């Protein structure tokens, strides 16, 4: 699971959960893949991302030094930051770990890079 994907995941479908975001991410095994750097694409993707979650995921994988805590328009014109965002969002690959609902504590395991967010019938 890439950290760009993580940015879009929520546990809102659990019955009674109001926001379910961001999920608490715990990483036990991660890898790095190589992806072609396309600054224009990163720039287009940015408005879709929750910035606080981008920063949160950087903290989880120890890359918080690379990423500004607050979003600003300067980021878009800063090739160096875009390159670091590219690495954080598209190259870091979470293989094993878990996601946790911030409201109920329900755990969604990540195995072989695939989060299991399937809910039981009595949870929805």
């Amino acid at each position, binding site marked *: 699971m890439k950290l*760009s*994907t993580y940015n*879009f995941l929520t546990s809102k*479908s659990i019955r009674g959960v109001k926001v379910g975001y961001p999920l608490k991410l715990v990483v036990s095994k991660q890898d790095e893949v190589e992806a072609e750097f396309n600054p224009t*694409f990163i720039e*287009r993707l940015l408005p*879709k991302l929750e910035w606080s979650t981008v920063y949160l995921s950087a903290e989880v994988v120890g890359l918080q030094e690379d990423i500004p805590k607050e979003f600003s328009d300067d980021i878009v014109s800063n090739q160096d930051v875009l390159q670091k965002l590219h690495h954080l969002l598209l190259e870091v690959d979470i293989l094993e770990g878990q996601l946790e609902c911030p409201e109920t504590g329900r755990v969604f395991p990540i195995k072989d*890079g695939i989060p*299991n*967010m399937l809910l039981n019938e009595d949870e929805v």
Partner: protein
Amino acid sequence: METPSISHLTSEDLENVYEPAEDSFLLLDALEKDLEYLREELKPKVCLEIGSGSGIIITSVAKYVQCLCLSTDINAIACSVTKRTASENPPASVDTIQMNLVDGIRKNSVDLLLFNPPYVVTEDEELTSSKMSDGQEITSKNLVYTWAGGENGRRVIDVLLNNLDDILAEGGVLYLLVLKENKPKEIIEIVRKKGFHGEVFMERRIPGEYLYILKIVKKKLCK
């Protein structure tokens, strides 16, 4: 668009995952026909395929359209097969999540949504009697979910259409594969009433079935 290779699929995979067939190829043909629109006009940031199965459709998008490509499937084996199909067809990169439809995806995130749903008209008992127990991988029963669509084959399709406004981003588009028995004209009327633009984008007769690709677009807000 070159059809992604699925030669890595084992016979065991195919016992658990829907093998690409005429319906899959029609959806691929529709995307190819609309490739210029996808690349030059829509320019999706996030593309998601529901029920990606073998993964050939989302892998094809990942190869030809630059966007974040996600796929979901309720079947764990399908999830891992989709991931493998993407990695066997570089430079495609697809992230797969095991979930029902788009239940765990943030609201209004998807710019390009693809769905080849379980559309076959079936008795609803067919599904309840073969329900997967929690966490179990019951091989012979996994496949039922790939085709059994309940009354008019619309069981899953209607759930998706009811939530479409919350799923798609502004200007987002859904390519939906349906069968004549699913009443495509009625589906188009339903989505138009909800304020979407809807049309039959492609249709094809194959032995025993008549297939359609519906293109449903969420209008952009006027600014």
